[in-house]
């Protein structure tokens, strides 16, 4: 590329980059993920409590049944047996939000009433529901242990019987594995790759918007008198690709910061490997270049912005097909359908990004998809360049199929 060409490409790229990253929509879209992460952490901190710990206060139980209840602090550490008067008095003064009443018909009718006070809703629905679940668990243990005790079971056996059993997952080497990590270990990279797929289409959409805007504002001919069509397209692809990468970089940084915090906050052990990250970036670039070239050609072809959106949605339909087959990616990552989706150029960007999140997917398939996308990218850029040049100056008219074919074959 000559000096004049590269200067023009960079000028176009710089303008389109700055214009895009200064848009309110771009800023809002880019900051949405970091803001969401901050929000999730803030909310989880506010509502966080130890689910195995106490019930955030005493659990008052009024026993009106004939079964003698005996509190075992090992099983129900927060339970207090009180009289009905005392329970109502404490409910009235607000020192408790609710109390349990074991009715006279218990245990023939296995129903316990929860008397709630007017202040109960003040703590927020999530906190209230969770507190009640913890309290109900303790009351249930109280009632069952009391029944067993009444049936003559010794305290030692009772303790062994009712103590909750914990399960620990380990590797063959004995290393402890968090069960939450198994789920999160897929979900986090999966969401991560979905974000990449989303970003490909957001960024390609910017390209479409940029081309149609210049056509609709009748600026394109002035620009073309200074910049030949191919450097113009190259500048746009470069500038808007850089804007997309900026967005992805901010999201990645957010993820890199958030994942260790999430591990700590939610007691999980999740990581996204640098190899996955590098591959995701590579496939983002390939996907963007392929779809970007197609969208640039669509923008040049379409008479107006509305038509451009309609035409591009046709390609967007192909892009989301792999997402429909997500269960298949999870269960049979080497099935023929997955292979087909990973190799077909229009579905490959989303398919391969999904594959990266699935353990056990074939490295050969990822490599084959890479080759397929590289080949398609080259063809798409070449064809789009010709269509871009041949149709960009058609204002408000739909180019004929013959003209498009002529453009592709270099005769128009």
């Amino acid at each position, binding site marked *: 590329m*000559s000096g*004049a*060409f590269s200067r*023009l490409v960079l*000028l*176009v790229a710089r*303008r389109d980059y700055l*214009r895009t990253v200064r848009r309110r929509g771009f800023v809002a879209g880019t900051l949405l993920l970091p803001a969401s992460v901050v929000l999730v952490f803030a909310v989880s901190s506010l509502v966080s409590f130890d689910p195995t710990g106490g019930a955030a206060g005493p659990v008052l139980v009024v026993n009106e049944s004939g079964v003698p209840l005996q509190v075992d602090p090992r099983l129900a550490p927060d339970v207090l047996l009180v009289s009905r008067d005392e329970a109502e008095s404490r409910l009235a003064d607000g020192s408790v939000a609710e109390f349990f009443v074991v009715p006279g018909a218990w245990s023939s009718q296995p129903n316990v009433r929860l008397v709630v006070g007017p202040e109960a809703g003040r703590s927020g629905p999530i906190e209230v529901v969770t507190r009640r679940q913890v309290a109900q668990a303790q009351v249930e243990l109280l009632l069952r242990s009391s029944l067993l005790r009444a049936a003559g079971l010794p305290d030692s056996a009772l303790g062994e019987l009712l103590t909750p059993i914990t399960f620990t997952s380990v590797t063959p080497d004995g290393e402890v594995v968090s069960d939450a990590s198994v789920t999160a270990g897929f979900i986090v990279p999966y969401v991560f790759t979905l974000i990449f797929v989303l970003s490909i289409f957001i960024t390609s959409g910017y390209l479409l918007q940029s081309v149609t*805007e*210049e056509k609709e*504002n*009748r*600026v394109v*001919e*002035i*620009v*073309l*008198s*200074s*910049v*030949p069509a191919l*450097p113009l397209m190259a500048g746009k692809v470069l500038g808007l690709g850089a804007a997309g990468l900026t967005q992805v970089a901010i999201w990645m940084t957010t993820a890199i910061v958030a994942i260790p915090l999430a591990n700590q906050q939610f007691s999980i052990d999740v990581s996204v490997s640098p190899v996955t990250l590098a591959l995701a970036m590579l496939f983002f670039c390939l996907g963007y270049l392929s779809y970007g070239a197609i969208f640039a050609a669509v923008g040049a072809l379409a008479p107006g912005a509305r038509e451009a959106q309609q035409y591009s949605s046709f390609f967007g339909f192909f892009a989301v097909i792999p997402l429909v087959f997500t269960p298949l990616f999870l269960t049979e990552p080497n099935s023929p359908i997955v292979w087909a989706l990973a190799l077909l150029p229009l579905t490959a960007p989303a398919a391969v990004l999904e594959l990266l999140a699935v353990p056990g997917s074939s490295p050969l398939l990822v490599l084959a998809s890479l080759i397929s996308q590289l080949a398609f990218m080259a063809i798409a850029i070449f064809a789009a360049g010709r269509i871009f040049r041949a149709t960009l*100056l058609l*204002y408000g008219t739909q180019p004929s199929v*013959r*003209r498009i074919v002529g453009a592709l074959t270099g005769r*128009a």
Partner: protein
Amino acid sequence: MSSTEQKAGEGSTALPVIVTGIWKRFGSTDVVADLSFEVRPGEILGFLGPNGAGKTTTMRMILDIIRPDRGSISVFGRPPGVEHQGRTGYLPEERGLYRDVPAIDTLAYFGALRGLSLAAARRRARDLLTQVGLGDSLAKKAGELSRGMHQKAQLVATIINDPDLLIVDEPFQGLDPVNATMLKGLLLEQRDQGAAVVMSTHDMEDAQVLCDRILLIDKGRRLLYGTVSDIRRAFSDGAVEVVGRNLPTDTAALRSAMHVKTYDGTVRYLLHDGATAQDLFRELGEGQADVERFAVEAPNLAEIFIRTVAGDPRASRVA
């Protein structure tokens, strides 16, 4: 060095534009067919022709927006390309500005695309916008400008790089009279400074007043090419209109005239081939005629345009 000398100096090595036998076909139609002409420094070349004649296509080929199928184009001695774009200015027929961007930013961008540094382009845009009365609207987005302001900003975009070759396609279309007058003055000023101007227009009156030479094409082919006076003379039919007393009306008494017609106190003499208006004037003097007005009849460009497109054979004299 004055700007005139400077431009003349820059363009002295080669003509701004030499077009030699270019062809351009869209589908099955030859939009431009074997067209040749040149544009000289310090002139306005009027590029005339009916709609669809191939004017815009030719201008786009000079600017390298599209390429000819055959033939060659030389711009300042070299094929059209990005290296010339710093020396050219273009005002297309379909023109606009980015609506949601301050006008000065758009103009600075256009200036940078035409070879100026971004800072220099911004300074130049500011100066020119101020010069055309838009100094208070620099930060306004194009969508917030009135139509007249919009037009002025587009004109500024055309000359932001002080071009040596200015190509303007229907420049007065849609302009209000104030802006049209301003643009005419601007084109004349650019020409006087040594720039070559190619102007496509349908307004024959503007062409007759502003242009030094005319190129008329139809269906992509050259029909007329020459100075305005040469072309008008070619279509004058050798007719002379005379007002006065004692004017002879019998062709037998005149060597130079082959036909005489009188109307409204004016006598119209149709000259023999080879006879000149001076021959007739001399004869009238010899014959004691008292000449009050003696005018070589020449149709205006609008008439010539219509006649030429209709196939008048006289066009071949100046094709």
